[in-house]
């Protein structure tokens, strides 16, 4: 449950401008695209790399860090590192 996965924001949508979860990023997680709330990373924008956990970006990473984190998670957890499951959010 600690698991967080790095990915790159490819698009930002201001779905609900006044809502805490208002900014939604479309994040490319190593090939699969998910939607993640940017509520915890208000400074994040298109092109930035973020660490995503349970549908929320929890921190911004630089690209080198993101790739290294992904490589190490894959090495550490292998097939246990499944892509996110469950219905996609808005």
């Amino acid at each position: 449950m600690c698991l967080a996965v790095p990915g790159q924001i490819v698009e930002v949508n201001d779905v609900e401008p006044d809502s805490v979860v208002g900014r939604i990023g479309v994040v490319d997680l190593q090939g699969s695209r998910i939607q993640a709330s940017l509520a915890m990373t208000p400074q994040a924008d298109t092109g930035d790399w973020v660490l995503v956990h349970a549908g929320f970006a929890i921190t911004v990473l630089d690209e080198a860090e993101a790739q290294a984190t992904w490589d190490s998670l894959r090495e550490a957890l292998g097939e246990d590192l499944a892509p996110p499951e469950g219905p996609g959010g808005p």
Partner: protein
Amino acid sequence: MDRDEAKGIIDRIDAACAQAGRVCIMEVCGTHTVSLFRSGIKSLLGESIHLISGPGCPVCVTSQGYIDAACELAVRPDVTVCTYGDMVRVPGQVGSLESQRARGGSVEVVYSPRDALTMAKQHPDRQVVFLAVGFETTTPGTAATVIAARGEGVENFSILSGHKLVIPAMEALLAGGEVPVDGFLCPGHVSVIIGAGAYRPIAERYHKPCVVAGFEPRGMLEAILHIVRQVADGKALVENAYGAVVSSEGNAVARDVVDRVFVPADAVWRAMGTLPDSGLELREGFRAFDAVGRLGVEIGPDVCPDGCLCGEVIQGKATPAECALFGTACTPVEPVGPCMVSSEGTCAAWYKYNRPAQPGVEKA
């Protein structure tokens, strides 16, 4: 990391142990437990390093009473329970969420609390309850979703709050004095939120080195080396060995979101009793989103199945191998306790990576 690099770090660990003696390190986080096994580190480290698994698996520390309450909700005709996948197979007193679903109960596995809120909006005729379980990595997401639910006027969404806090658990274990821990391997992603600096009171008050580590083998080995060196030098400092991802301050925005919605409260940890200020409850202004009040469900007492040692295992007081049920009555296919169910559970990790091969049984 290749074998030579690993050997190099392990040689340095052994050298430090020559000075420090036997060192007991608690890996707080369930994902570390799995990574340490999977990488083979556990088997490479010498006898001088004793790694103990801690209570860092949120599903494993969830009380039986919480599971039973979730199961009760799942079979109510107008309720849908949304949960992270790991919770679904944990056995309660009358079955698991999975077995309730087989009986016609409404249980949906979600990746995010946002998905549960979406489901509530799509099904206004049902009460959607999100099982809010997890440590500090996960609580900001729940908090933000509750804020969104209030802002959007969603009246059929609520949470069953089961969030837990890592540092009160570490303090309780140390204050109990029963587990001989010399230092802590601190969770990587919880620390993204709380910051490496959050462990300073543990280091200072209890004189235990705390090193934040990521999940890859080299990083974990180096973190272990840092701990052993500190023990050898008589130091008790916080070190951040996951600096690429974790800062000293953590994510203040995320913590503010949690503070808006939740307040620390006493919480029941499986087999550990009530730990003060170790959980979260909804603040007054968000109490309407508490499933307990809204739906009149009760979280009953924590009851451990006969013979199950999960409670001792999560506190580092016993290993899975010491449980009479391990690998016989309790297996991943037919689990008795949560430690065997969760992907981060110590028993599940031992079963997969540390079970002696038996004739006729394929080794995992």
